[in-house]
């Protein structure tokens, strides 16, 4: 058994934001084993106070450069809930199409750019250009497809402009929808090749099981990415649903000394959100092609290996492409029309949720009679996963020590575990920092 270990990973690579891994083991005794989140809170909720209801989603969209669609949709849904605004079936379908684009875009990025290097034994995606050039080229093709997909529906992929309380203010033409359908169909060979690549790399996914509670949106109508009730599934398959309005009773936020981000828990000591949680909750609602993909990749509910979250993401990409083809066909059949900003019919509190790539997202707002926001609350999925990551660490580290793993092997295993959750700790700054060489 490994007796002395000191792991101090500050600023973990290939995750979105800043997180630290600290493990100290002396003479076989674990003195410290922590997943730390040291980022300062950003207080987005204060930024929406005093804002007109037409502006709120534009502001909260800026919370995240990857989940901007999800924040926009959760925001407009909560605003519509508070102000008594209904949307049409057309708007719901367009929003679902946009949601699929975001999930696929983020999952492609995570699987190909952030996780594949681990499974291929490379430090980053750049060496893969030499060793797996077709894989990298395929990743960039799929990224481009998702960008065009989201831009068509949302006006732009990052921070969409078309989604407003009441509908979708700018809609694609039938011709544009038909072209999108053609692009999605043309991408099927790349999807199939993606599954083959993941299947080839899957043996390198660590074997680690820690049963936990899995929470996501769930619906009797579909896979629940856009709408549904909160659902919990326990490792024994027991399921329970909760109204979205009761999200605080499910999330039960609390603070811990090691993290500036709040932790959450429900029935067990912690719970997981994200693609694997959705898969475990909603497997039956996947399209047949996605179920076949899951079978091909050896994923079946209830999967309790957190490293398999990336595999669940790939299955969801397949689901998103095929479900989008259905949505496009239905929209082409009915045609699409403009559905601009709607007027409030009441005011008060609204609470809504959507699934974003990293899990279930909650937005809550209070509005006055003038449609001015008086306050808000957002609980993002990455925060819901921090506690689960810590509990994974608590089980995994003793297993790694018992298996006599060296410090570097342990460090990589822990880094890969965190990366598997695809954490989106914050949108950091973006600026360049260069020196001139000529």
């Amino acid at each position, binding site marked *: 058994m490994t007796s002395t270990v000191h792991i101090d990973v500050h600023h973990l690579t290939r995750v979105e934001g800043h997180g630290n891994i600290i493990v100290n083991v002396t003479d076989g005794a674990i003195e410290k084993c922590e997943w730390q989140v040291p980022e300062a809170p950003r207080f987005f909720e204060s930024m929406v106070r005093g804002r007109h209801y037409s502006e709120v989603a534009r502001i909260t969209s800026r919370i995240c*450069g990857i989940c901007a669609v999800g924040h926009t949709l959760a925001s407009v849904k909560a605003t519509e809930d508070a102000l008594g605004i209904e949307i049409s079936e057309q708007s719901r379908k367009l929003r679902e199409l946009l949601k699929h684009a975001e999930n696929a875009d983020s999952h492609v990025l995570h699987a190909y750019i952030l996780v594949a290097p681990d499974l291929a034994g490379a430090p*980053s995606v750049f060496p893969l*250009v030499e060793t797996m*050039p077709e894989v990298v080229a395929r990743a960039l093709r799929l990224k*481009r497809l998702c960008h065009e997909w989201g831009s068509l529906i949302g006006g732009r992929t990052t921070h969409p402009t078309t989604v407003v309380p009441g509908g979708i203010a700018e809609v694609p033409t039938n011709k544009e929808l038909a072209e999108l359908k053609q692009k999605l169909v043309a991408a099927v060979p790349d999807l199939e090749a993606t599954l083959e690549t993941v299947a080839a790399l899957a043996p390198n996914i660590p074997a680690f099981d820690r049963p936990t509670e899995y929470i996501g949106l769930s619906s009797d109508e579909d896979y629940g990415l856009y709408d549904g009730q909160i659902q919990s599934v326990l490792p024994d398959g027991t399921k329970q649903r909760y109204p979205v309005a009761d999200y605080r009773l499910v999330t039960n936020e609390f603070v811990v000394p090691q993290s500036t981000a709040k932790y959450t828990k429900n029935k067990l000591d912690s719970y997981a959100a994200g693609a694997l949680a959705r898969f475990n909750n909603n497997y039956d609602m996947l399209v047949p092609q996605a179920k076949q993909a899951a079978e091909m990749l050896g994923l079946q509910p209830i999967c309790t290996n957190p490293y398999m979250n990336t595999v669940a993401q790939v299955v969801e990409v397949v689901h998103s492409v095929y479900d989008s083809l259905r949505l496009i066909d239905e929209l082409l059949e009915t045609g699409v029309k403009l559905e601009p900003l709607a007027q409030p019919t009441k005011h008060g509190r609204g609470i809504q949720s959507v699934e974003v790539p990293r899990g279930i997202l909650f937005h809550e707002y209070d509005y006055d009679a003038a449609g001015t926001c008086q306050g808000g609350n957002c609980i993002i999925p990455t925060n819901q996963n921090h506690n689960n990551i810590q509990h994974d660490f608590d089980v995994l580290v003793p297993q790694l020590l018992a298996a006599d793993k060296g410090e570097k092997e342990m460090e990589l295993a822990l880094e890969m575990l965190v990366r598997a959750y695809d954490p989106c700790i914050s949108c950091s700054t*973006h*600026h360049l920092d260069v020196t001139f060489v000529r």
Partner: protein
Amino acid sequence: MRYLIGLGNYLAGDDAVGVHVVEHIVANGLDRGFTAVELATNALNLVSYLGPETEAVLVVDAAYLGLEPGDYRVFAPDEVETQKELAGFSTHEGDPLKVLELARSAGYTIPPFAVMGIQPLAVEHGTGLSACVGDRLPSYAAAAIEHLTGL
């Protein structure tokens, strides 16, 4: 097609100057002869604008260049070495120069490509630009347009 692409985090002060330049251009109807695009922090989506059909790309972004805050310089990628220490290659922290390197090595046809780097004063949480940066938006826009349309 020519593209003027603004990058930056809208909620990080002067980091968002590229986004504000795009907004200024579009709001004033100055996007003639090119398309102005805001990619926010999602620099990896730059690859969507690279290819044989693209005539030119100008990225406008905040950049630490050793200049006075608010001053700017237009440069080609091969004129500089990036000093940015990335936590990872991701959409949140994407470095457009790294994205270009990835696209080039993956076989993409890289069109004429330049970066307009604007020295920030304050990159910190909050909306809005510092006065020494925000007051110069019209001149940044004019310089960017002149560069892009004059190629």
